[in-house]
């Protein structure tokens, strides 16, 4: 019989594959000997400890990328009570899990309670406390924490019955400094940070019914968005925006599915949502850009709306066990319109611009037919064809034709794509999957959109007992020859992984990936009011990623984990940022390539003090180095010590 400890060790081996942060400690306190109170079996475990931090270099960049700090916190907690025979008085399962509570920048808690046949309730709460990377240039600034909280509540009444009811509520809030629409010309047109206050509430009400072999789901939801950020910037470029920004979306969703034995299955969806936006904006601003206009008053009144409709019908037909035919038809339409009017009054020139709400409509119709053929249990093929046509229409009515997007325009783009796949499985240990896609669109909207593209994906996996070895390759190519210029992109990724548990006390895992990306695109821009054409934007990135880990159990006395993760962009191999000096804009000179190194070794020791009590200590080091620009570089040491116990 497989022992509890064996199970835990094998599971830990698997968990290492995703291990990046040193905490919470995954080694369980064992043996888990659940308490039995009345008709319930109860298990609990908690890990509480202290995290320490030392940073040298750019502390703000560390906070933007990692953000673990000092202090006492609950690294992890788990409480579960389950009825012994699934027939508890008030509930059959109660579960509470928490991570990072108290001080960590990433905190979460999940609560679940259910009574078989009567109700299920799920609560998911999360907090992300992160520093904004302020500007998108490589030498940008990172400032201050923004807190993003998410909570979801879902209650299902009569969950295992033929008719069940659903009630849900979600809230998303952002609070803290973030980039706003405020621009300070005195500081060189840098975007300013303000204390943002954004809230989204979503309410859901629905039901599931299973009658006459059909499953019908209906859901109605209401979403309310409110941005109460106040901007009242003084100084040389005053800008005022005091009114809240409100939006509302409500919609219906209907699902209908039916299985006709094992040969035919149908799945359909119809959704409609209407987004309204009370976009009343009344603001005064000095134009932040170099312009003849000294100041403006902008007034936007009326209602904007965005009705969106989507419909899908998936049909799977399996006339014989070896063949299945899948057809996926979809339709969706988004229309942005309304009676909004935009008025811009320039105080310097006394000119005004009146713009009725711009209409942007997108309608798409697609169909995808796939045939799967499995002549043998170890051999399979699939092939498919997709046609998709998308039409968009843009209308703007402006009193001043200098406004962009004035007038109307329609365009239709059609995609034709084919897929082919091959699947081989030998002796249940070796599996090979190969697939490819070839596609063409006739009128892509953007220079970088897919036009003539092909992709390839392959994976080989060998699994024998506790040994897993696999390799993955993917390549995506696109060539988009449009008017004036052409664009091409090549993306190739390769991955290999291995996990092995030769002994109960020893586990290895290793992953390596290479992500290669290069793009070439024609450029048109101004330098000192001179139009530059005929140059090319060439971007090259060669990202290498490696992650290795080993877990060692020293009898029953201690568990040790050592890991190392490394990300390195080697660029195009150059050692200096400068190119051949032929391009007037340095960033476009020769090739855009930005080598960097980001690596994090970690170590963890965990010692069982008693059967239900463990002492843990760990260390993780972060290093971030950009080769050409060192202003954002940092080194950070984080360490923690904790006690984990179960009872």
């Amino acid at each position: 019989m497989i022992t509890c400890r064996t199970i835990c060790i094998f599971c830990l081996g698997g968990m290492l594959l995703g291990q990046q942060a040193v905490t919470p400690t995954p080694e369980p306190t064992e043996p888990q000997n659940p308490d039995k109170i009345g008709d319930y079996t109860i298990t609990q475990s908690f890990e509480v400890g202290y995290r320490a931090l030392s940073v040298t270099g750019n502390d703000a960049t560390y906070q933007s990328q990692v953000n673990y700090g000092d202090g006492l916190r609950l690294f992890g907690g788990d409480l579960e009570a389950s009825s012994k025979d699934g027939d508890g008085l008030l509930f059959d399962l109660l579960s509470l899990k928490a991570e990072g509570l108290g001080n960590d920048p990433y905190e979460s808690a999940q609560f679940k309670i259910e009574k078989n046949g009567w109700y299920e309730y799920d609560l998911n709460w999360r907090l992300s406390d992160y520093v904004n990377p302020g500007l998108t240039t490589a030498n940008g600034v990172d400032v201050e924490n923004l807190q993003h909280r998410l909570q979801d509540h879902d209650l299902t009444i009569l969950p295992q019955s033929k008719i069940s009811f659903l009630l849900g509520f979600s809230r998303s809030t952002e609070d803290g400094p973030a980039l706003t629409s405020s621009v300070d010309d005195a500081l060189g047109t840098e975007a300013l940070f303000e204390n943002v206050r954004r809230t989204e509430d979503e309410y859901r009400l629905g039901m599931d019914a299973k009658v006459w072999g059909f499953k019908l789901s209906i859901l109605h939801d209401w979403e309310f968005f409110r941005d109460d950020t106040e901007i009242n910037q003084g100084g040389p470029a005053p800008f005022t925006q005091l009114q809240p920004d409100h939006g509302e979306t409500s919609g219906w969703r209907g699902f209908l599915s039916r299985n006709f034995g094992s040969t035919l299955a149908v799945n359909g969806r119809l959704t409609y949502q209407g987004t309204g936006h009370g976009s009343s904006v009344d603001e005064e601003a000095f134009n932040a850009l170099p312009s003849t206009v000294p100041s403006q008053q902008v007034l936007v009144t009326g209602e904007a709306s965005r009705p969106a409709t989507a419909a899908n019908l998936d049909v799977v037909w399996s006339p014989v066990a070896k063949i299945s035919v899948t057809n996926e038809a979809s339709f969706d339409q988004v229309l942005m319109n309304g009676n909004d009017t935009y008025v811009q009054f320039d105080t310097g020139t006394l000119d005004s611009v009146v713009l009725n709400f711009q209409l942007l409509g997108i309608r798409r119709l697609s169909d995808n037919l796939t045939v799967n053929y499995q002549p043998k249990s170890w051999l399979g093929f699939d092939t498919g064809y997709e046609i998709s046509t998308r039409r968009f229409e843009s209308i703007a009515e402006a009193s001043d034709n200098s406004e962009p997007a004035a007038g109307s325009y329609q365009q239709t783009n059609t995609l034709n794509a084919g897929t082919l796949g091959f699947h081989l499985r030998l002796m249940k240990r070796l599996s090979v999957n190969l697939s490819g896609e070839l596609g063409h669109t006739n009128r892509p909207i953007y220079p970088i959109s897919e036009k003539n593209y092909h992709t390839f994906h392959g994976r080989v996996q060998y699994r024998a007992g506790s040994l897993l070895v696999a390799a993955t390759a993917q390549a995506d190519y696109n060539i988009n020859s449009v008017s004036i210029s052409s664009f091409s992109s090549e993306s190739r990724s390769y991955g290999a992984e291995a996990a092995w548990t030769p002994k109960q006390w020893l586990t290895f895992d290793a992953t390596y990936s290479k992500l290669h990306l290069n793009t070439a695109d024609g450029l048109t821009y101004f330098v000192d009011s001179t139009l530059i054409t005929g140059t090319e934007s060439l971007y090259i990135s060669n990202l290498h990623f490696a992650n290795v880990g080993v877990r060692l159990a020293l009898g029953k006395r201690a568990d040790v984990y050592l890991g190392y993760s490394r990300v390195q962009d080697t660029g195009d191999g150059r050692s200096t940022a400068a190119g051949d000096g032929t391009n007037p804009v340095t960033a476009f000179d020769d090739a855009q390539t930005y080598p960097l190194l980001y690596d994090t070794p970690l170590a963890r020791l965990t010692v069982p003090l008693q059967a239900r009590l463990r002492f843990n200590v760990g260390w993780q080091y972060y290093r971030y180095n950009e080769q050409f620009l060192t202003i954002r570089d940092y080194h950070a040491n984080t360490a923690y010590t904790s006690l984990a116990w179960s009872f």
Partner: protein
Amino acid sequence: MPRISPLYFAMLACGTIATAATYVGSDVCQKCHPDIREQFTGNPHFRTWALKHEQGTGCEGCHGPASDHVRKPSSRTIFGPSAHTAEEFTERCLSCHGTDMNRAAVHNSQHTRAGVGCTSCHSIHQSVPHTDLLAKAEPGLCYTCHPTIQAQFSMPFKHRVNEGFMKCSDCHTPHGAFAPTWRMAERPHMVSQRLLNEEACLGCHVEKRGPFVFEHTAVRVDGCETCHMPHGSPNARLLKRPVVFTMCLECHNGSGSGRTGLGMPITPSFHNMADPRYQNCTGCHVRIHGSNADAFFLR
């Protein structure tokens, strides 16, 4: 009385002759498998046992009638992992979950097409995280087959998946999803749709939903991935390029069709791109996802 060949009993013992096995009940199973019975408490499948709605629930709900297995304990006399393929397991799971999980969606998913069956990700008896019977906790479970995605989540700038703040299933639907309502509906596969039919990103980044008086068409027509790498990136704000203007100018070079058919608008002449001031596009065009107050997304 007809004589029965000894060969018949030999074949029966080997499981090469199917007999009309009958249900014996889960209480019989736990006499030989008490450890599995103990682990089964608290398992969602325990409901099929505890509710006792109909015959064939509990152990036999998945493993089939066990009378033959009781007479001849062997992996050949019961439906189990050693003698059946992932596809057969999927079909067995869909016999109950075909309505809830939706057979059509599961068959149409990229996972099923690649031979990934239910038991590739779910451990029915020994689920470790006790969440949806997963064999391992996310994201480690997903990384097992997607090492390049693990690489993306290990970049300096990334969504906090490894840190536990998010899960892969926050954005993805591993059991199959409807065609996306953005791009040309060809990709990405198995991505959840937020607020009924929107791109998954808008579930958290609600302030970018709009509608705006002035929409940045790229967001609405081709989606967030036009500029961002959703999993992780070596560049701030998950952008495709470390220097923002090099990315913007790849589209705004006068080529293509754009929203007006005149090509993507190029920058005005006072934008001296050799001046660092103009190389940080979003330093001025701060409402790049859409604005109610400025056609150039300045406010």
